[in-house]
């Protein structure tokens, strides 16, 4: 982090990006650490919708982390990070942070918001998936909304267990093994009052199983919300061509090479940060053709519009795409 950045609130390169200071680091469990970021000048940070995430830059990479606060006029942004030894390095970089360090973060992004019309919020979390759900629980407690939580964690390894107990009281059901969770889940899925929305966060297979069971029990799609906190491993995909309308050239994107890499190799400079479909920096305008959207950033509606794609991960369903580049 540069010395001149002391004066500026926003990163000079990436507009809308915040430069924040680590204000606290505390161990939640042996492998989960909570980190809070604040404005170096002590100003309030932009508010956020419960369930939002922050993209935090580290070295040349970036990762998305759920904010655990309620989001209204926050003085700090708090995240909790599980250390992943064989990950891409983001979690290790986060765990190496100490108070006073400077970090570049995105503005909070919302992709897991509570439904305004919900009569009740049924929150379901496994492991580190507690983080966005805790944000929902705090928000519900703050605004007097009805909420309950099923939290699956192994004894002694759960983060924010005491927070969850304080916030939800008897609305919290803790499960420490899959068997008891299954029993609780079936009972909860069949006894929720109309107007209940379900929010699930945890490992991909856990979320898939919860959502599938909910659908089987008659839950409409409009009541189901899930937050994937890691980009799934993507396959190489099929080769395709892109026609760059403004440059007047066509380039081939081979299988296993991203569109972003191909564009960079062709001499274009495309803004990017995470290079895994999370941050939204690498959006490119699509003029023709149907992209194969593989990012976690665009909303379903934006994906259906097919006018923008995240070139770091997304590819093409058509043999050729035309881009406004």
């Amino acid at each position, binding site marked *: 982090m540069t010395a001149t950045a002391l004066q500026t609130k926003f990163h000079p390169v990436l507009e809308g990006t915040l430069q924040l200071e680590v204000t606290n680091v505390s161990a939640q469990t042996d492998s989960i650490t909570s980190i809070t970021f604040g404005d170096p000048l002590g100003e309030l940070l932009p508010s956020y919708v419960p369930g939002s995430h922050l993209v935090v830059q580290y070295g040349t990479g970036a990762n998305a982390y759920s904010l655990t606060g309620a989001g209204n006029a926050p003085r700090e942004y708090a995240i909790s990070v599980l250390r992943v030894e064989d990950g891409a390095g983001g979690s290790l970089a986060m765990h190496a942070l100490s108070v006073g360090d400077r970090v570049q973060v995105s503005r909070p992004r919302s992709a897991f918001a509570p439904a305004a*019309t*919900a*009569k009740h919020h049924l929150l379901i979390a496994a492991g580190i998936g507690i983080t966005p759900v805790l944000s929902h629980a705090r928000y519900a407690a703050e605004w007097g909304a009805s909420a309950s939580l099923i939290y699956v964690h192994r004894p002694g390894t759960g983060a924010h267990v005491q927070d969850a107990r304080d916030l939800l009281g008897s609305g919290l059901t803790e499960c420490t093994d899959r068997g008891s969770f299954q029993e609780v889940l079936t009972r909860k*899925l*069949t*006894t*929720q*009052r*109309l*107007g*209940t929305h379900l929010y699930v966060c945890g490992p991909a297979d856990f979320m898939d199983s919860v959502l599938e069971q909910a659908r089987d*029990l*008659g*839950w*409409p*799609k*409009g*009541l189901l919300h899930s937050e994937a906190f890691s980009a799934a491993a993507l396959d190489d995909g099929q080769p395709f061509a892109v026609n760059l309308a403004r440059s007047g050239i066509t380039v081939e994107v081979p299988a296993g090479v991203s569109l972003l890499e191909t564009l960079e190799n062709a001499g274009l400079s495309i803004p990017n940060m995470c290079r895994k479909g999370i941050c939204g920096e690498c959006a490119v305008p699509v003029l023709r053709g149907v992209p194969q959207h593989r990012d976690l950033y665009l909303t379903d509606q934006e994906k259906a519009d097919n006018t923008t794609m995240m070139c770091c991960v997304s590819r093409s369903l058509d043999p050729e795409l035309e881009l406004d580049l």
Partner: protein
Amino acid sequence: MRAASQSPATVTGCEPGFRGVICVSFGAANTLADHDAGGMPRQDFRFASANPEALANLRSVLERSCVGVRLVLAGPPADVHAAASAVAECGLVDEEITLLCDEVGPRVIFCGHCHASTTTDHPIGTDVDCRGCATTLTFTDHFSRRVGGYLGFSAHAEEAA
């Protein structure tokens, strides 16, 4: 003549935690007699019209039901849409509700200018005079669940502007 299911005794007959199909018909004809509930358990309710008492009964049925339920509303468009608007307040989403409107029957037109509701027998695409501000309104099939009616706008809006 009032439908038997309007009595509180019948309403409480819907077991708590019901997750099947709730079939509600308004008006004289029992439109839903042959409705296929897809093998799910069903509960039938018949009301003369979507009056406040009927809507209160319907809401209390829904309050005792659980997610997984499907609601079918059938009868004259004005009744069906009044009921759809009332149940939207219970938090039901579109996927949970099926609206089966009789082809003919009164519709409610919601004035986009003065927000008064006007009931009409006119078919979609025709004009009607607003009961509130007397503006000649044109309405299309744009039905708003929020206001429980079809949205009507001045038929001569372009000329006025």
